[in-house]
């Protein structure tokens, strides 16, 4: 690895922790008068969106701009993509324009993988959500948000923390990426959904599953609600919205059974009244708005670590963290940058 970020499974624990620590340093940028760092000056980042998105696209755009990169937005609507241009021709165009990184969202699972590995272009590919497969930066920002609330001290991790992911797991790339990343970080994930909305092969995911939300809530540290993705449903997965909400929706009564420190998350967009009620979404426990703020810092960290240096810092197994000082003991005055 890894010049690409395609799957949360590609991240080792060291990689993930490096991203989270970098994001922590970058988050303070939001409080400064000049929200700009020069790290990616002269780099070009293309946002290639084949599917609608509000949060993710804006978040990546803000992240790239705060790192001084040039951003080109490319969405399926209003471009040649809507005329039937293939992914390959689009990739060749981006290559010809000299894109250093492509942030891609696609309705087809595996499209970013194709873009990264087919040899069409040399840019870094960052998966911003592909079909029902993965959304690794969302998992990273969720882990970052959990760490800030549940493990605020430096060096603390999410080991042993319990996370319940509730709702339409079948169609959720957020659930899959979160399950993979949280397992890497040592947290225990429980997927809660009706049997029809749990994916085939979920027993190989390193997670627990449950059909009973009320039994899971009192034991969990985080409850993450998922939107029911009706646009991806071609069959009837549950009898009625009302029944779904009753059994798997988070309302004030259910929220009251949570532990005092537990937080409520939602990757958005949420449907108030369906998987979550308005009073829960707006409650003190809800960190839904903070997730969006954290998304910018996490995406900045990913872009910086992939593109900021001569080669990506996210590696598998190599010793990269803190190479300047510290890891080798005392400061040595022999480095060219050591002044």
């Amino acid at each position: 690895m890894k010049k690409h970020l395609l799957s949360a499974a590609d991240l080792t624990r060291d990689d993930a922790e490096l991203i989270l620590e970098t994001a922590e340093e970058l988050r303070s940028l939001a409080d400064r008068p000049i929200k700009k760092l020069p790290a990616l000056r002269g780099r070009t980042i293309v946002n290639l969106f084949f599917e609608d998105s509000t949060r993710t696209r804006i978040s990546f755009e803000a992240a790239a701009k705060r790192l001084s990169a040039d951003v080109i937005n490319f969405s399926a609507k209003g471009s040649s993509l809507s005329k039937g241009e293939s992914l390959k021709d689009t990739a060749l165009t981006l290559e010809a324009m000299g894109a250093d990184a492509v942030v891609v969202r696609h309705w087809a699972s595996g499209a970013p993988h194709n873009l990264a590995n087919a040899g069409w272009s040399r840019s870094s590919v960052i998966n911003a959500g592909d079909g029902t497969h993965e959304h690794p930066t969302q998992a990273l920002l969720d882990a970052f948000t959990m760490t800030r609330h549940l493990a605020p001290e430096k060096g603390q991790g999410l080991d042993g923390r319990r996370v319940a992911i509730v709702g339409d797991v079948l169609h959720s790339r957020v659930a899959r990426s979160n399950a993979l990343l949280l397992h890497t970080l040592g947290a225990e994930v429980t997927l809660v959904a009706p049997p029809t909305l749990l994916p085939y092969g979920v027993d190989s995911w390193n997670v627990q599953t449950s059909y009973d939300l009320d039994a899971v809530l009192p034991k969990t540290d985080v409850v993450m609600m998922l939107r029911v993705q009706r646009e991806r449903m071609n069959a009837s997965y549950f009898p009625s919205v009302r029944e779904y909400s009753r059994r798997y929706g988070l309302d004030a009564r259910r929220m009251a059974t949570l532990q005092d420190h537990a937080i409520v998350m939602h990757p958005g967009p949420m449907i108030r009244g369906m998987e979550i009620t308005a009073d829960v979404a707006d409650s003190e426990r809800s960190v839904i708005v903070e997730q969006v703020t954290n998304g910018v810092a996490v995406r900045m960290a990913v872009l910086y670590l992939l593109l900021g240096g001569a080669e990506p810092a996210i590696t598998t197994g190599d010793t990269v963290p803190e190479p300047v000082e510290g890891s080798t003991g005392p400061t040595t005055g022999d480095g060219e940058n050591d002044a």
Partner: protein
Amino acid sequence: MPPTQPELAEQPDTGSETGPDTGRTVLDARDLSRALTRISHEILERNRGSRDLVLLGIPTRGVHLAHRIAAKISEVEGIDVPVGSLDVTMYRDDLRMRPARALLPTEIPPGGIDDKTVVLVDDVLYSGRTIRAALDAMNDIGRPRAVRLAVLVDRGHRDLPIRADFVGKNLPTSTAESVAVRLEEHDGEDSVTIR
């Protein structure tokens, strides 16, 4: 007034070769403490007191040094000088020449740095490139009234027109040598060695 830099009493080369990598000790713990005490007094003298002072250390060891200087100023003046840290990683001119590296903390004291006299604190001054990066980084945070530079060791060989205002020890070196600063907070002992 021009900063005076009295050389510390040169330690006789006691050859403290406790390990194969130790090298020659230039400052021991007591020398280091005395150097910081002198720097603290010089800062106060130059600034005519501790008014509007902010100390910004450059991570990692510069931050520890900044805290020690602040503690010494507090002993003399009875006033706590704001201390922060300034990470310059993203402003380095060699950022693109090496793998992307981890960021270190930037903590600006609550009062900010606008119209303050900022004293940058670092352990070793060598090429001057870190300080150039720090000046750029500060530009994005605010506009200090003045910026001064305090370093524990100035080893020469500047690549840029940068000089220190407060120096713990001027240490003539060859570029083949390396200077190692060890601090109690980070390395378990206070010393400056050269090899």
